[in-house]
């Protein structure tokens, strides 16, 4: 049975369903329930926040403060604690409220979560999920709008997941929790309210398997998280002009489904990668480099990247809008490829 759910509620359902069957799971983060220290005020079991974006809403009522744990504002403390707890048999799911705050706990992820298994000869594993919130377009300014996918994807030992639909969000979250490795689970703040058909029962979506969001034969467009939807918008415009774009959502960036991307480019001969992140050492460069090596023979035109500029993210609405790639830019990139082919 499927119903319509948005990403926020799909994630909430995934967390709830898995917590119901696995008592090792706790959620930890700042105000993920809310009102800690004020249970006298809130009606029994009511969370007054449920997270800034409501992803963990109502879980307190069902699971109590033992399992929905509001922490102090100390990301190194609670991310590190999650690592330690995972080593003795727990399955912590922690929230870093905004991906921008990575710097306050990065050492625990870079040098500990990611490396303990390897350094210690394969004897341990670190089954934690770090949920965090990405993305521009919320008028949240330079320190609450970054994506920073590449800072995690660069690091061996971490897995990186970033759903763009509610169906994927639920299935990938269940996979993330069950994965024995540290998983960075990135949720885009401007996608939370996006609806999709979502099965009621629990299900998993494997990592490393891309989703073909639209089939097409003329150009491959890889969209990074929210940009999948921008790419689909562009594909509509292109279709009106007789160009059929294939739109791919990698869904997980580490591991990356190289085969689906390469297979698509083999078919289309053209590749555009769209990402709102800063352009340097980014996912688009990663995917471009993959294809410029292993898919070179298929390429009929330059690989184009449509990304945010090499600037911090401005607050001012018209500037922020200009920061984020739009369908026109994608269409222009594709058009340039077709022009290239004919010159």
């Amino acid at each position, binding site marked *: 049975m499927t119903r319509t759910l948005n990403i926020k509620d799909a994630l909430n359902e995934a967390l709830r369903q898995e917590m119901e069957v696995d008592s090792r799971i706790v959620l930890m983060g700042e105000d993920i329930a809310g009102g800690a220290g004020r249970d006298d005020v809130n009606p029994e079991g009511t969370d007054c926040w449920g997270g800034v974006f409501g992803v963990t809403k109502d879980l307190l009522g069902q699971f109590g403060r033992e399992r929905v744990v509001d922490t102090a504002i100390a990301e190194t403390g609670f991310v590190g604690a999650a690592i330690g707890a995972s080593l003795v048999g727990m399955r912590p799911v922690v929230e870093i409220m905004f991906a921008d705050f990575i710097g306050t706990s990065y050492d625990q992820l870079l040098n500990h979560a990611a490396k303990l298994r390897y350094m210690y000869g394969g004897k341990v594993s670190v089954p934690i999920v770090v949920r965090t919130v990405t993305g521009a377009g919320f008028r949240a300014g330079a320190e609450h709008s970054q994506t920073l996918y590449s800072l995690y994807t660069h690091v061996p030992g971490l897995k990186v997941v970033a759903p763009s639909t509610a169906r994927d969000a639920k299935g990938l979250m269940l996979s993330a929790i069950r994965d024995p490795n540290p998983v960075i689970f990135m949720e885009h703040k401007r996608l939370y309210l996006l609806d999709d058909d979502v099965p009621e029962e629990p299900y998993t979506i494997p990592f490393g398997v891309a989703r073909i969001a639209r089939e097409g034969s003329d150009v491959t467009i890889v969209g990074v998280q929210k940009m999948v939807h921008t790419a689909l918008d562009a594909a509509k415009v292109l279709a009106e002009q007789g160009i059929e774009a294939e739109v791919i959502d990698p869904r997980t960036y580490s591991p990356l489904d190289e085969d689906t991307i390469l297979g698509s480019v083999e078919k289309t001969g053209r590749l555009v990668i769209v990402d709102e992140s800063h352009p340097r050492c980014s996912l688009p460069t990663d995917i471009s480099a993959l294809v410029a090596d292993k898919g070179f023979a298929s390429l009929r035109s330059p690989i184009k990247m449509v990304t945010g500029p090499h600037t911090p993210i401005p*607050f001012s609405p018209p500037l922020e809008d200009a920061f984020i790639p739009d369908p026109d830019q994608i269409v222009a990139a594709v058009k340039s490829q077709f022009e290239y082919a004919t010159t």
Partner: protein
Amino acid sequence: MTLARETLIDLWTRMIRIRRFEDRVAIIAANNEADGFLHTYSGQEAVAVGVLPLLNDGDAFTSTYRNHGHAIARNIPLDGLAGEVYGKANGVCRGKGGSMHVADQDFGMIGGMGIVAGGLPIATGAAYGYKYLGKDNVSAAFFGDGAVHQGAWHESLDFAALFQCPVIFVCENNLYAESTYIEYHLNAESISAMAAPYGIPAVQIDGMDVFAVRDAMEEAIERGRSGGGPSLIEAMTYRYGGQYEGDNQLYKPAKEVTWWREQDPLLRFRETVDGIIDAAELDAIDEQVQAEVTVAFDVAIAAPWPDVSELTTDVYAPLA
């Protein structure tokens, strides 16, 4: 009351200006007339106004996302502040910062920082710089009760103590870190008690009393300027608004709200100056300030957006 009449008037003006500005911000937020997270300062006016007028030219301070009050207490013009809230070209940061990142170094305001405790190392470094350069300036760093758990908080106090930097750490203890009550998260008796291991002199004071704040700040500044190193002030205060506008504040007991409303810094000020300054005079300033606020927002609303070309400017400073 040993303060000059004009000083009293000045303190009142700055406090009421903050309140009226934030009243307007709250309306704007309720009407969805401006974008983004808006963190209002109403209720905490006595802290900013107790602290900031005492800074000299050349002194500096760091602020947080909850920074309108700090900007106004430093007399940063309201139209530039209103412009920044909208992201207009007339904003103090030309719209690039937004409400959370208000800054104007000409007024000593290094800027509003969105990372909890992120400004503390920087204010500490400014103080380090003053000392190194042989200046008798001081710096201040504002932070909330929730910030004390951050590694950056610890490393800042630690650095300041080690190098005896003339920095004043100003905690605005409004009892809540977002929706989390202080008794849940604080391990110590008080935040001022946490300064002990660093050997940093600290006081807990009534943050609704602008005079108490001012006295504590005067002492801290005197210590800093005379080579006595860092200080910490914990000002007990209360925010009337939510963590940001839109927060329904289900976590606050009604009784608590009532109690703190009775401590309102504007009310307390009126009580203290009763018999020294006529209420009508204060009311007149209030009215004048309300007009100022209206004008500032009119200017901001009429101001143009920054040109899209500004997206890519100001990333790097040009080589000299």
